[in-house]
């Protein structure tokens, strides 16, 4: 019976994620258009030019909502071009790794209400409930996605793809560290790596127990590192259209290309859910979604609250894409190694002190702000760029 329920949940979640992925691509294109004062795709309705469907829908365009379906259909029907010079096995394995690992990482992420000490019998809205290494599992499996990029770039046997893969490996290895370190503080505060317990800890304490109050710095670092992990724009050096054509997916077309995209957008969804869960109280919201609220439909409200928070962060990630220009490679590396990692370590030390002497967690807000301002001050004091050496003129 339990296996049947799990199976149903898996099917629902996978279908939902793939559907949301398709519509996120539409949202991305719409957001891009709105930011650039355009309308975005608004022509494709649900008739696809078929006369029967056209009569059924009255020729209405539905504000372009049919676009993802048309795009998906196009990806399936396009010719599968496999260049002669690629490594056939790895070339096909890479896009599947991109999709499998990112979908797998979602297995332990709660997407609705979960049990708390106040209502221990609540149905857990998560595929694999009660995994004690939850957050570690997400990062362990999620970071396997780098193999998709590296293998795809290597198997393509193309210098642009290889350069993209090379950058990606350096980037992901660097940003894993601040990502893990920033989450470590949250795990320390909640006393668990289990995502449901982390939510329960915040939900039981109310609005002012959300980790964002104590760890705004960890949130900033987490967001930056997570965007780097999912290759989103300020950190999208692996694909980087202007320099590398398409980077690691230059040689990919049709459905294999779409699978890389699915992987990327699933990663964005996972990251947004994790942000909401780790720092913004998960499904908890004052008055309407408390652990004790038991009115009919409370589970749906909690699901919608968590989903709303996740959509907010997805949207934030999307408009950040149209706000920040791409990093240069040395800037990317120095941001991780010279800024984020030291800040994370200092933040961790502060959290250790607070936990050791059982101080109020509000001290962590003070230390976070102090570290942030301190980093800014240090940045103004240190030389920003290496000194340029002028080569003496050759006479």
């Amino acid at each position, binding site marked *: 019976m339990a296996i049947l329920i799990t199976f149903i949940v898996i099917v629902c979640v996978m279908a939902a994620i793939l559907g949301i992925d398709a519509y996120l691509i539409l949202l991305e294109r719409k*957001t891009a258009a*709105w*930011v*650039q*004062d*355009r*309308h975005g795709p608004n022509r494709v309705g649900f008739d696809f030019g078929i006369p029967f469907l056209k009569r059924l829908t009255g020729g209405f365009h539905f504000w372009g909502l049919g676009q993802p379906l048309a795009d998906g259909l196009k990806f399936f029907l396009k010719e599968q071009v496999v260049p002669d010079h690629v490594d056939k096995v790895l070339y096909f394995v890479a896009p599947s790794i991109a999709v499998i690992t990112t979908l797998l990482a979602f297995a332990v992420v709660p997407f609705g209400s979960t049990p708390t000490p106040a209502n221990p019998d609540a149905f857990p809205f998560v595929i694999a409930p009660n995994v004690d290494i939850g957050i570690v599992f997400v990062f362990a499996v999620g970071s396997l996605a780098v193999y998709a990029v590296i293998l795809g770039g290597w198997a393509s046997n193309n210098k642009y793809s290889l350069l993209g893969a090379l950058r990606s490996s350096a980037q992901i290895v660097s940003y894993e560290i601040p990502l893990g370190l920033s989450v470590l503080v949250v795990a320390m505060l909640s006393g668990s790596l289990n995502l449901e317990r982390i939510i329960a800890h915040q939900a039981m304490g109310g609005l002012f127990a959300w980790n964002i109050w104590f760890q705004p710095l960890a949130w*900033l670092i987490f967001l930056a590192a997570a965007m780097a992990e999912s290759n989103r724009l300020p950190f999208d050096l692996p694909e980087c259209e202007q320099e590398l054509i398409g980077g690691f997916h230059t040689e990919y077309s049709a459905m294999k290309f779409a699978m890389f995209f699915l992987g990327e957008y699933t990663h964005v969804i996972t990251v947004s859910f994790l942000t909401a869960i780790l720092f913004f109280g998960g499904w908890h919201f004052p008055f309407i979604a408390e652990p004790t609220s038991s009115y009919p439909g409370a589970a749906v409200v909690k699901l919608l609250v968590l989903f709303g928070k996740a959509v907010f962060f997805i949207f934030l990630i999307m*408009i*950040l894409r*149209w*706000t*920040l220009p791409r990093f240069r490679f040395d800037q990317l590396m120095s941001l991780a190694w010279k800024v984020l990692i030291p800040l994370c370590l200092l933040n961790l030390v502060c959290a250790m002190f607070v936990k050791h002497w059982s101080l109020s967690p509000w001290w962590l807000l003070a230390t976070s702000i102090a570290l*942030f*301002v301190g*980093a*800014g*001050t240090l*940045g*103004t004091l240190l030389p*920003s*760029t290496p000194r*340029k050496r*002028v080569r*003496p*003129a050759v006479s």
Partner: protein
Amino acid sequence: MPMTEKDVRWVKEPRMGFWEKLYVPAVVQGLGTTLSHLFGPRVTQQFPEERPRLPPNYRGVHRLNRDEQNRVKCVACYLCSTACPAHCIDIVAAPSPWPDREKYPESFVIDELRCIYCGMCEEACPVDAIELTTLFDLTGLTRREMLFDKEKLLSVFDETVKAGTDPVRTHRGRLGPASDTLVPPARLGPSGAVGTNASHPSDNRTLKERGV
């Protein structure tokens, strides 16, 4: 001449202050700019529903003008086909059936695919018989369809004059009412009146005096 050390000027990057070094305030400011555009006005023209407002001197499909008696104005002088850099105008002249001119075009064919829409035919014409209209969405299924003969070019005249998009610009050398709108309103004098000689060549006031 090779570059020397003197010619190289090193530009120093402006030093960032404390506020910029925090980065986050600048990112938030950037997000504000992005968000303000999210709700701002749209610049896209929804083309098939919304037609573009083209200036009257737009160079689109040609037309052959008619005179007051509905005859073709052209006198088959070949000046347009001589001026044409793309050699897309083909004229066959014949003795005119009318007493006021020697010749008239028996056939007048423009290859609209070969044309580069430079407007030199219009400039060359001594009797203002050929003009470019603001029709721009010219399509066809075959190349043959895009060879516009005399009847087709005259029908373009009839349609554009009837639709009012392209009034006849000149009338036997005198500028017609369509020429007034060639001056965009912003370039007119402070009164803004259309049809004043604000941009007439004989007006020898300076630009500033005219209030441009």
